[in-house]
């Protein structure tokens, strides 16, 4: 519930600095939630990423852009309709999703069970998340590393050329 309140505040406030801080709090809360859901690795990562890196980055950007958001003319009803529709679809779906936390859910039957039972025999390390991440699904993880690298290269390409004076229209040649 706290999450929802925080999230809505983030959306509503027009002070971007405030929004950023609230977003950091939001991330930390999520990290706590992950920890209670037994996802230690994920909690650690979310805390480091959501509350750490992205906050620092947004702050760094805020040093370069104005702090306040412009008021926008009117509300976008179509957008609200789309959002409601999407939400309604998900609520509709939720009735058939398995109940929370039951060991009998399909999720826990198939691959989950394999990983819990077999990992130690296959690989011999206790941290199942690390095992699945780096061995069973290692191509995904390689993809993840490439994603990070891509982000690095893109930001490098975007921000390393020196800034140029603002122009009304970029000349073509």
């Amino acid at each position, binding site marked *: 519930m706290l999450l929802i309140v925080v999230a809505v505040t983030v959306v509503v406030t027009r002070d971007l600095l405030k929004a950023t801080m609230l977003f950091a709090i939001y991330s930390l809360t999520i990290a706590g939630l992950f920890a209670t859901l037994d996802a230690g690795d994920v909690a650690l990562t979310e805390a480091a990423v959501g509350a750490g890196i992205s906050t620092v980055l947004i702050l760094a950007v805020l040093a370069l852009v104005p702090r306040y958001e412009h008021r926008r003319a009117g509300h976008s009803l179509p957008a609200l309709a789309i959002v409601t529709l999407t939400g309604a*679809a*998900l609520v*509709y*779906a*939720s*009735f*058939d*999703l*398995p109940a929370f936390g039951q060991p009998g*859910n*399909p*999720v*826990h*039957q*198939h*691959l*989950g069970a*394999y*990983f819990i039972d077999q990992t130690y025999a296959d690989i011999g390390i206790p941290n199942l998340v690390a095992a699945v991440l780096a*061995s*069973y*699904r*290692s*191509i*995904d993880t*390689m*993809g*993840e590393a*490439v*994603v990070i*690298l*891509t*982000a690095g*290269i*893109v930001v*490098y*390409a*975007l921000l*390393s*050329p020196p800034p140029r004076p603002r*122009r009304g229209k*970029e000349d*073509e*040649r």
Partner: protein
Amino acid sequence: MSSITELMPFVVLIPLIAGPVCALLPGRGLPWLLATLAMTTAFILSAMVLAAVFDGATLSYAFGNWAPPVGIEYRVDAANAFVALLITGVSAILLPWGKPLVDDEVPERQGSFYALVLIALAGLLGITLTGDVFNVFVFLEISSLATYGLIAHGRDRRALIAAFRYLIMGTVGATFLLIGIAVLYILTGSLNMVDIAERLPTAEGARALQVGLGFIVVGLAIKLALFPLHHWLPNAYTYAPSLISALIAATATKVALYVMLRFIFDVFGAAYSFAALPLAAALMALAIGSMFAGSWLAIMQSNLKRMLAYSSVAQVGYMVLGVSLTTLAGLSAAFLHLFNHGLMKAALFASAGLVAYRCGGLGMNDLRGIGRQMPWTLTAFALAGVSLVGLPPTAGFISKWYLLSAAVAADQLWLVGLILITSLMALIYIARVVEIAWMQPRPEGAPAVQEAHWTLLAPVWVLVAANFWFGIDTRLTVGGATRAAQALAGGVWP
């Protein structure tokens, strides 16, 4: 057979590994050389792979030797081998073509530029070959992120806005896909496509499954730029560097369509997908919307690249229309057009790129009388345009023939009319450019424009020749498309 299985993942891995290497290379020549070599090798490999699966075989490669569904597998049949051949082939031709244009538009830090190109292509190929739903998401993000960066390389400042808006739309699409994957995973406990397909019958009838399918289709429709989710595409194609416009126009939407079909047919199963949601009707409506909106907006444009971009929206409509006929013939036609459209759009964007390179602008005013000064480029454009309109003996005619035949066979005669009307609309916007370029005099005082160097023209003409070659010798394209359709919907659809 087994050795080709071992080599198959390298279609993806070669560009994926060459990318980071490229980022480290200095100067202008080396990164380009590496990229070209990598894509050429990948092209040869994917041709071998297609040859191996052409008769209906399926290759499976388990990463880390963990047998699926525990590990991740690459699973190749005729459908994705066909798409992979298009991606690698077009990029192997376009990279040599694009070198001087890139030198012109992105003078510095080419190492990182070509690294992004390779990574984007590797991402697309990864989506194409993988047999794991989450892996689709990861590679989709790889290619998308690299593409955003590449679009932002455009010289015009509007490229930045285009990239940002594409980023927002693209991420929404990817997140929708992720929600769909979550539903699939929650209901089946598996991530492997074949495995999910086997387990889904237990969950059939679940409302969640319907919604999951809906989210996946919508998410991918954004990537596919299907009307009315196409708004990101025109700006992105228009302001990106020429090489990137040509590359992504020829490949990105095709991959999105392919993976959408893979989800619909293989993961959910055609029988389920088309019964659970009014998918056929929805796709047909959106396809017709795309065809008309795209063609109409293309006619309204005054910038050549923008016009071609809207035309892409229309052409995507044809492909989706083929799928929505729910027959094997329609699906074959969709695959056929997927391949042929890749060829024709690559040729069109490539010749437009040469015009931009030589004459600077792409407004209709810049084009006046340009045909006399760049005859080879504009002839290539006109011939590729003939293919786009769908006149014989070009690849475009073959796709249209099959699409029309499929519509007739499905007793949807009214669609024949719609397809023909939009073809004539394509004729209008292509003929207009040709007329302006050839029949109008050069404006007073406009600087003389030189024909592009033959090394630049050669790849464009290779593409044009391919359009004509596949318009006459249709064994590869029609055979590949039929087998691709067979691989996806064989036995399910008539």
